């Protein structure tokens, strides 16, 4: 609590903090012990809130976002449309398409043959939720999920759609959602970054990801997503060079600190004190991060739960397990990206393998968080950047077809963090083309996530170039129906 209170008061630059209180530089050490990130970067002079203090009591303390990059088809996963199977091969009625824009890939097509799911659907759980056979593990946890079938977005191509989901704008250098959360909530663990990013790739057709997706934009770079990778250097440049053990590193940093201290006394610049603190945090991270990355202590039950792939660094399964560990250790926002969901063709053959890689670990993460009593305070999100068309792209065959981009409706799920479990929200028409009930726009989605973290999305602002920016720009409504 004292941490939060101090944070409350320290939303001004270090330099001002030190000078206005006229405290001696000796007190710097005390301050940094009390507030781990007092020295982490200059905060903006005037924020629309007090960093570290939410606007109201949060339901979720942390977020794990399992982004399915490339846009998985809703029609083969969670949005069951038997009509499409009945009308297989018939043209999409113009009354349904209604002149909606198409991507350049299908706008030249002469016909738009409807195509039903190649995979079978069944009802699962007490909620009786329809899920496709390609997700046998997720089927078992539907009663923990809130499945939103009425997501929609404005962008029709990957880059802008992905950027929109992550930053609230299709173009430009806006801060990522995780950066906003880091800015709003600060860090829970002084040895780890507040916003971590994990990448993996499946077998399906992939679309790239870009570091701007986890960029801090105009926020301080301390809020930038830190990419964790598999291998010796989980965080860039974390690993000491050959021949440098902990004791040798400690000795070296002590000398650096001694020399910096001479400069601090000479110049009186508080930035030097900050620099000394940053070296200390770097040193602590060097121990803390490898500890987190080490999965050798996980029990056999856990390995079984996530699947043996979780022991192979860089897989989606390994990243799900790592996400749990990071979250357990207080990382605020863990962003996974899993590539390979862009099935413009060859969908029936490609999607099953793609699904297999993510099904078990996604379900395992929910089960694992739940058994640790962490699901209530951790919001887990699963979904892509838009949906897929109900008609076939390219050559049509019942067992070999493709689907183009479709921003007008798609499905995601959320779990934990104060979201109603065992619920299906929103509805699309029988063709799976338009939303007929409870649409959820990307801005609404953002507003809802911030709400669960204790923020009024209209008040979590940052002033840059004369304007107060927010994640939801000028729109967004909290989807209250899905909250517990």
């Amino acid at each position, binding site marked *: 609590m004292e941490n939060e209170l101090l944070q409350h008061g320290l939303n001004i630059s270090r330099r*001002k903090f030190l000078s*206005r209180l006229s405290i001696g530089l000796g007190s710097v050490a005390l301050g940094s012990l009390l507030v781990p990130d007092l020295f982490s970067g200059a905060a903006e002079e005037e924020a629309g809130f007090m960093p570290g203090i939410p606007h109201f009591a949060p339901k979720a303390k942390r977020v794990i976002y399992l982004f399915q990059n490339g846009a998985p088809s809703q029609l083969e996963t969670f949005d069951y449309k038997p009509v499409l199977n009945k009308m297989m091969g018939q043209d999409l009625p113009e009354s349904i398409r209604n002149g909606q824009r198409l991507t350049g890939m299908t706008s030249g097509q002469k016909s738009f043959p409807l195509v039903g799911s190649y995979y079978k659907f069944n009802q699962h759980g007490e909620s009786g939720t329809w899920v496709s056979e390609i997700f046998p593990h997720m089927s078992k946890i539907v009663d923990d999920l809130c499945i939103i079938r009425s997501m929609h977005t404005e962008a029709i191509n990957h880059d802008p759609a992905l950027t929109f989901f992550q930053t609230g704008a299709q173009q430009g250098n806006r801060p990522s959602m995780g950066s906003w959360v880091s800015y709003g909530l600060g860090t829970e663990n002084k040895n780890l970054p507040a916003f971590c990013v994990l990448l993996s790739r499946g077998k399906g057709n992939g679309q*790239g990801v870009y570091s701007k997706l986890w960029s801090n934009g105009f926020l301080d770079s301390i809020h930038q997503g830190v990419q964790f990778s598999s291998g010796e250097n989980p965080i860039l440049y974390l690993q000491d060079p050959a021949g440098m053990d902990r004791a040798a590193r400690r000795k070296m940093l002590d000398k650096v600190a001694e020399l910096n201290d001479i400069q601090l006394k000479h110049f*009186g610049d508080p930035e030097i004190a900050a620099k000394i603190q940053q070296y200390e945090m770097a040193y602590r991270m060097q121990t803390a991060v490898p500890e987190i990355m080490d999965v050798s202590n996980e029990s056999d039950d856990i390995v079984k739960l996530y699947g043996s792939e979780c022991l192979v660094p860089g897989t989606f399964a390994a990243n799900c397990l790592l996400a749990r560990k990071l979250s357990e250790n207080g990382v605020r926002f863990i962003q996974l990206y899993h590539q390979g969901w862009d099935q413009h063709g060859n969908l029936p053959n490609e999607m099953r393998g793609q699904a297999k890689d993510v099904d078990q670990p996604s379900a395992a993460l929910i089960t694992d968080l739940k058994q640790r009593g962490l699901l209530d305070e951790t919001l887990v999100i699963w979904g892509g950047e838009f949906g897929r068309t109900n008609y076939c792209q390219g050559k049509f065959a019942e067992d070999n077809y493709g689907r183009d981009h479709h921003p007008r409706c798609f499905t995601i799920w959320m779990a934990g963090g104060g979201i109603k479990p065992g619920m299906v929200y929103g509805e699309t028409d029988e063709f799976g083309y338009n939303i007929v009930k409870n649409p959820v726009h990307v801005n609404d989605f953002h507003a809802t996530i911030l709400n669960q973290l204790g923020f009024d999305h209209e008040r979590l602002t940052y002033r840059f170039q004369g304007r107060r920016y927010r994640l939801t720009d000028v729109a967004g409504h909290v989807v209250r129906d899905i909250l517990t």
Partner: protein
Amino acid sequence: MRKIYIILLLCLLCAAAIFTTRYFFRSASGAAASGKISYNFQVRPILSDKCFNCHGPDANKREAGLRLDIEAEAYKALKENPQAHAIVPGDPEKSEVFLRISSTDSSQRMPPPSSNLPPLTEAEIAIIKKWIEQGGKYEKHWAFVPPVKSPAPEVEHTDWPANEIDFFVLQKMEQHGLAPNEEADKERLLRRISLDLTGLPPTPEEIDAFVKNTAPDAYEKKIDELLSRSAYGERMAIPWLDVARYADSHGYQDDNYRTQWPWRDWVIHAFNENMPYDKFVTWQLAGDLLPDATKEQLLATGFNRNHKITEEGGVIDEEYRVEYVVDRTNTLGTAFLGMTIECAKCHDHKYDPVSQKDFFQLSAFFNSIKEVGLESTVGGPETFAKNPRMDITKEDLEGVLNFMNKTDTHNLQVSIMKDMDTVRKTYILSRGNYDQHAEEVTAGTPAAIMSYPDSLPKNRLGLSKWLFHPQNPLTARVYVNRVWQEIFGRGIVKSSGDFGMQGELPSNPELLDWLAVDFRENGWNIKRLVKQICMSATYRQSSVISPEKLKADPENIYLSYSPRIRMNAEMVRDLVLSSSGLLRPIIGGPSVKPYQPPGLWELATSGRGLLANYRQDHGDKLYRRGMYTFIKRTVPPPSMMIFDASNRDLCEVKRSRTNTPLQALIMMNDPTVLESSIALADLLVAGKQQTNASITSAFMRIINRRPDQQELDILLQYWKEQDDYFKAHPETVEDVVTEVGEYKLKSPPSADLAAMTRTIQVIYNMDEAITKT
């Protein structure tokens, strides 16, 4: 438990103290509400921040039909209550503005809670009240009034100023009870000018020569010499590459290779030739429209083809074509006008007099380019530059483009500007959507800044003339401010990308205007401007911060000491390579791929194109200056990004400057730093000097001054400990000195070499190593 309470209490007290001080500071900076109130400097910032959102220029969002940004409108009878007036000059008690902002009734008070804006502070209310009492007069926004050179002000310490700049700076210091610092010592001063003018540190020989040279014009001579080096052009180009969003890939999802580097070589060349700023910009905006345009002039127009270009199959062509036009329009606003005109793409600007129509009129200048949204998807060399483009031939390389560093014989194309034969119609796009055409417009500029003279052609060449018209209030101010920002770390207008009403006010308006007019009157001479700043006594001060100054002016707004500034990303790399002797000072050419942690490109790629995998270069290419490091937009070089470099997505005029643990990790473990430590240790050990001489030499190469005794003692002691260790553990020596990069040792691995390597790493990790002091 009790301890916690005490700490808690302390915290609360601290917090309270901060808020009180902060509040006091703010009202004090507003000169309280005493004396003559300045509309521009005291009133408008309040109105703009708290009122214009709903009562400002944006007609669509205007509440109650009231606008407060125009005098006549604010004086008018209120639409909803004709007996009342928002502002009654001389009578605050009859002015609704005052009554509503000071009301204690929350249903009456402005701004309303629904706006999410904080209420006005007591001090702000007092300013508004006093201003209305004094007649409630409006003034044109300061930045829209053409700058005028005022005479150098009177100061008390007349012996301090070295040139005009100092009179303006000293006056502000004296007004705030501050006195300048003494001049920095010669070693630090030499390092400062070397970094500022060339981006590279001085060599030990240069330091010795400069320290020994007691001639009165030694400093000026050194500045002239540094300005004449080709490293100057490289140094000046870096912020310009940010402005021009220069990169080596197309951006967007596949992010394949592009060959725009010849344009970058031209920028370096232009700075080195000291091309006047008006010519420099005109060539870039409209080189193709100049009579008998040369290939050099065409190459310069690459400036506006540096934006991202999609190669994503299936995009809607027009959507992206419009996106490129919008990018150029926004860039014009940020780069040359210091205006956030992008806000007016979707709606009238909420704070500045730039309407949506103004935005699209400006965009019309860039709307007739012979281009498409999606020209090609990921492919071979024919996709590396998009149309319109030009070929660079062997004759060009021997002739007009002889500054280019092209050593191979491959065909080379570069994207340039070229208009279509007919003018493409431009429309206002409703809500900024590419397919929602509203009213048709023709090329023009916002009248509030400066109307477009009828005498000028309505094309990019005319637009350039408009920018450099003596009555244009922004162009000169914006550029001199950015040069100032580059040198002092903070612009005279802190928000260097926003000179509009929501931007920061200039900390020294007379100085800004004097510099702007002087720059224009002297032929837009950039080297002259840079030299003028470096010759000032203001610049030459030491950067010692006394506790009193830290308290009185913590942000150093009044420049009573020289700022200590962490070097930019490129300079950090250059310092490391240069001090170790590894730097290959080759100018220009294709960008290079030095060491980078493995897997970054591979993990983020779509798998298509030349850049799906990072193929690290070898040899000389590992040791080029930071500005030549390959920038793949979607995965920019991490060691640069961690030091706040631009990702070159959009025009950027100001980098942030942070201090994070990831930066510490780079200095500790980046192979470039490690390899440089080994190379420098090798060099010094081979020199067979005494250890303390070697350490002094390393220190001089990196920190660019002699270590004092205390520093030397610390380093010597550390060296001794390490040397003892490695002597006792000879098996660990190889690990330390041979495991990094491609560097080949000249002397055999030894305890001495390993100990020296470690000692040099300590020096590289000193704060001062990467700080301009």
